[in-house]
């Protein structure tokens, strides 16, 4: 479908995943400076990427995100729909 949206969603999902991983690592290594720096950097980057995605394609949460009119949150597709998702190519692994 919209390859720009899929590409942006891929970058955002990848960045959010590194945040989750660093979150779990820091939970058992609270004094690891290196990890904390990576976490904070990733969060700042993800904020920008998320803002860009939501500006173009609508809210990602019904909590932190604003919506244009009419209420966009309910709009298709939802994450369990085929068309919502991107695909990771073999060489990216």
């Amino acid at each position, binding site marked *: 479908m919209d390859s720009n949206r899929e590409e942006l969603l*891929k*970058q955002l*999902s*990848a*960045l959010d*995943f*590194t945040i989750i*991983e*660093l979150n779990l*690592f820091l939970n*058992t*290594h*609270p004094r*690891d*400076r*290196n*990890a*904390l*720096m*990576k976490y*904070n950097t990733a969060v700042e980057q993800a904020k920008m990427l998320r803002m860009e995605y939501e500006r173009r394609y609508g809210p990602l949460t019904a909590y932190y995100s604003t919506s244009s009119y009419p209420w966009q949150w309910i709009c298709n597709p939802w994450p369990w729909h085929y068309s919502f998702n991107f695909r*990771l190519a073999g060489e*990216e*692994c």
Partner: protein
Amino acid sequence: MMNMRSSDSKMPEKPYPPECYDRVPESEYIPGNPYLPNIEPAPGAPGTPGYPCVPQETVIENVKLARAYVPFQRLCSTYPAVRALCRGTLFPELFSPYRGPDKKHRPPQYE
């Protein structure tokens, strides 16, 4: 009658562990990086120049019986974000792909 109080001189001043770790005061933060305290890392620590980075602890001390010990991971390198997502972990040392139902999974053959 002896009144033995548990809060003797042996008790530490703060409860152990602290309910959460004290945040470093803002005056100690690196200028330009509002989040990171400006404290030198311990010499020879992973990440200091020239140190070979081993991504886990290799010696565990004071091991006791009737317990399980999982070595701590140490942060060395990380995958770039998209590769991390694809592989399921940010850390190369934790990447452990499934090789399929091969000889390792056959039951052992005894003589």
